[in-house]
């Protein structure tokens, strides 16, 4: 599914890298623990998280995350958005809760990591 479609489903807006909105996303994971992100095979996956620090962006770089959705309307500091833009990491913000955001994506056919359903 295209990232722009995911943004639509989650009523999310782009904070960084909107230019990559036609990127394909097939799987997603949710975590607030950065080492869990590195423990999973999250290459090209969508990450739903409440962590909005600069370390989140760097962890995504190392893990090869495809795009990030910040939940509950979180908007990080400008330097975090700037780093995401620089590193080519699409960053979006949704007003939905983690539960509802995950539920909507699951319902629309997005798979878990390792393509679990």
């Amino acid at each position, binding site marked *: 599914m295209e990232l722009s479609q995911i943004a639509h489903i989650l009523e999310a807006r782009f904070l960084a890298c909107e230019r990559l909105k036609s990127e394909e996303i097939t799987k997603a994971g949710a975590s*607030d*623990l*950065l*080492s*869990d992100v*590195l*423990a999973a095979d999250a*290459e090209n996956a969508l990450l739903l*998280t409440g*962590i909005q*620090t*600069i*370390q*989140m962006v*760097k*962890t995504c*770089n*190392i*893990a*090869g995350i495809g795009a990030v959705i910040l939940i509950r309307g979180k908007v990080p500091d400008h330097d975090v958005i700037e780093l995401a833009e620089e590193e080519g990491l699409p960053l979006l913000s949704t007003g939905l809760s983690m539960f509802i955001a995950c539920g909507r994506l699951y319902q629309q056919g997005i798979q878990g990591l390792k393509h679990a359903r």
Partner: protein
Amino acid sequence: MASLSRTFRIQKRDFTNAGNASISVKKLLKSLNLSACVIRKVSICGYEGEMNVVMHAATDGILAFELTEKKIFLTVSDEGPGIEDIETAMQKGYSTASDEFREMGFGAGMGLHNIRENADSLHIDSTLGAGTVIRMEFNPGG
């Protein structure tokens, strides 16, 4: 082929620059056209080691990278406080990270476990009061 090496300084408690050494290593590996799998393994290990120095060490540390024809060597070292019981520290979920670090997203107690999963060879030397040295090796072909 001559070997290629780089060393990076890691500053304790410096969360602004934390991770930059490993991101530089990742960029270097990409520019050398190594396989995605090797790049992933090396950069995860570097990053977990680097973050541990930033969070847990009482001194600054060093991340050293060396690529030879046969192997990639990655070493992360600091000068204290050391790890009391390495086997316990390696367990999934074991963490002494403070609430401050947990709020930043660290403290899952997964870092050393991730290193063990991704390094082709791993040696940890740690002495209380003297520091920790984590030596990792990778096969550049796999």
